[in-house]
């Protein structure tokens, strides 16, 4: 359903602007990383794109959407996954059932994705007793099972140890390889380099630049981006 076009998108809470007048076009293919300091509006921007928040001004246009509800073709993984009080398998089946899949088909599909994320042996365990890393893998499985065209990821490894982070990054790569567009935020610039193809740099609700990842790190267009890269990588 891509490309995704944001047309003069704004979002404010009361009189406080969070996102200001962002216009950008996000194409199918390259993995898009949204970077910016804390409070820049990264998460809000993703929630607007995903339809969890309604813009106060501007439009979100999915140019390639041929039929129906854009929500049916996208999924999102949150920083802290919310697991339902039921088994790991049932958590994945839940999303598929909401998408209208039959019980049998849902269970087969759910087992497949659990296998891919390495949780098949935990399928019957209650999701909430899994470790943080396992829960995030389960969240990825639940999103991936829906076969989305676009997957939004909001700081998916923020609370995880290095080994779990590695697992999550591998799964994100596999989802990308399967043809799903990846749009994610991260605080970890190493991760941005490993997983990203292009960067959207946001500062104080404004889009400062959209650039290929290599160029962004080599010669950031704005002073803010330069300071951000320096600040996050103080040894440079």
């Amino acid at each position: 359903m891509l490309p995704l076009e944001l047309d003069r998108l704004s979002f404010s809470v009361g009189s406080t602007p969070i996102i200001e007048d962002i216009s950008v076009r996000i194409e199918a293919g390259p993995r898009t990383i949204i970077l910016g300091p804390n409070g820049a509006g990264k998460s809000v921007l993703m929630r607007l794109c995903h339809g969890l928040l309604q813009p106060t001004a501007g439009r979100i246009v999915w140019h390639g959407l041929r039929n129906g509800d854009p929500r049916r073709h996208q999924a999102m993984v949150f920083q802290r996954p919310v697991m339902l009080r039921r088994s790991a398998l049932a958590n994945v089946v839940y999303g598929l059932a909401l998408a209208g899949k039959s019980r049998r088909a849902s269970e087969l599909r759910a087992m497949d994705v659990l296998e891919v994320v390495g949780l098949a042996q935990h399928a019957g365990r209650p999701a909430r007793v899994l470790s943080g890393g396992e829960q995030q893998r389960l969240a990825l499985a639940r999103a991936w099972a829906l076969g989305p065209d676009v997957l939004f990821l909001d700081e998916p490894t923020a609370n995880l140890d290095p080994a779990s982070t590695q697992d999550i990054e591998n799964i994100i790569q596999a989802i990308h390889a399967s043809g799903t567009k990846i749009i994610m935020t991260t605080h970890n610039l190493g991760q941005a380099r490993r997983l990203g193809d292009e960067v959207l740099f946001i500062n104080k609700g404004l889009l400062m630049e959209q650039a290929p990842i290599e160029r962004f790190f080599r010669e950031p267009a704005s002073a803010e981006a330069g300071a951000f890269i320096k600040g996050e990588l103080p040894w440079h």
Partner: protein
Amino acid sequence: MTSLWEAFAAAWALIAGFDATLAQIVGLSLQVSLSAVLIATCFGLPLGAAIAVERFAGRQALIVLLNALMGLPPVVVGLLVYLLLSRAGPLGSLGILFTPTAMVIAQTLLIVPIIAALSRQTLEDAWREYDEQLRSLGARRLNAAMTLIWDTRFSLLTILLAGFGRAAAEVGAVMIVGGNIDGVTRVMTTTIALETSKGDLPLALGLGIVLIGLVLLLNTAAALLRELAQRRYG
């Protein structure tokens, strides 16, 4: 002091001997209060869930009203139901005043606000956690409400018990609409009130012990179940 001990001993004899009068009274109490909890749940839970996940004008006022109604005096509920069901009242033709049915109606009215208000709070807290995730997965309001009810089922059970405790312990409403008729509408609390005023302390005390024991038993069971669920489901 001696009379207290004598009363205790006599009460214990009644309980241990499965006294028929005692059993009949306890049975009716359970039947009336459990029916009231069941019916009140059918109204209160959906009401609480709807208020938890919907946003509409007057919502805050409704929450305040429900919270206030939790403290409804049983005698006032009894009086209202009495007026509705009495011969001259709008539902007088049903002829159910002074029957267990009238008592169920009164207790149901008494605990619907309790179940609705407390389940609203529980479900809304859960909704805050689940909201974005469920909407992201494409859940509509009704799906979301059902999911929340299922996921908080053990907390909700405690709320139903609170409702049962209130129903089983109140005396004012069942006294007025039931009439405390021997063998027909006499329940534990009304009997305790009556027998105490007559001076038959053993029966009153025996019923008191059973009443407290029942409530304690149910709450222990619920606490254990919750503990178990917490460990099992996280």
